């Protein structure tokens, strides 16, 4: 089949979305990162079911758990936001509402990512 794209368009490799493979690629990278993190978190959650306040705080506040938990939540939010953006792009057809929804998704992800990180650090460093 004859390629009707210009050489410049092919060299840029950005396609009609103007961002190339970036969204797709980041979704895969975050997915790979989440495989071990989610397994670790699900096992921890099951093992800690019914734990009291002091036990949970001691667990969250240990250095390795702080790092893994922040990674799980922040990467999880990033992956969720990318996936939800795809859902919005598929089902929201009004341009204005679509843009507003995508921006709202990003704001929610950043807000909860930062809030959860501050909460975890506060538990770990005693506040």
């Amino acid at each position: 089949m004859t390629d009707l794209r210009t050489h410049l368009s092919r060299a840029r490799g950005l396609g009609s979305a103007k961002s190339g493979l970036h969204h797709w690629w980041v979704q895969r990278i975050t997915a790979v990162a989440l495989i071990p993190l989610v397994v670790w978190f699900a096992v921890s959650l099951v093992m800690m079911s019914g734990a009291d306040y002091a036990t949970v705080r001691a667990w969250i506040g240990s250095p390795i758990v702080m790092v893994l938990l922040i990674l799980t939540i922040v990467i999880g939010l990033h992956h969720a936001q990318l996936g939800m953006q795809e859902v919005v792009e598929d089902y929201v057809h009004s341009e204005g509402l679509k843009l507003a929804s995508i921006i709202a998704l990003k704001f929610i992800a950043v807000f909860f990512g930062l809030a959860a990180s501050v909460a975890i650090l506060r538990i770990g460093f005693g506040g």
Partner: protein
Amino acid sequence: MSVANRPVHRPLSPHLQVYRPQLTSMLSILHRATGIALSVGVLYLAIWVICAASGAGTYEAFRGFNSSIIGRFVLGGWLFCVFYHLFNGIRHLFWDAGYGFEIKDAYRSGWLVLIATAVATALSWIVGLRLI
């Protein structure tokens, strides 16, 4: 209205409801559904650590909800969504790498995902939620 501006009524492709459900399409829909559920689930996780940082009273209220019938249902559903999205996500990554595209393989990996999800979910419910 000129001919050029008249809306064109092109034939539409058959919509979802005319197809007989297949394992592959159902698993695809379930992947998206669990993904949407987990987007809420990760916010729930963020709220959990925020409650833990806020003090004993707030945390006990959150824990009280989790140990209620609705809370157990939410957590149990969360575990199912996590395991399904995890295993089917790995299936997707194999497709992305170019493996498993034969129809026979797609069905086989689909059943494998369902079995792995059932086992992991049941184990986590038994150990974590004390459902039996």
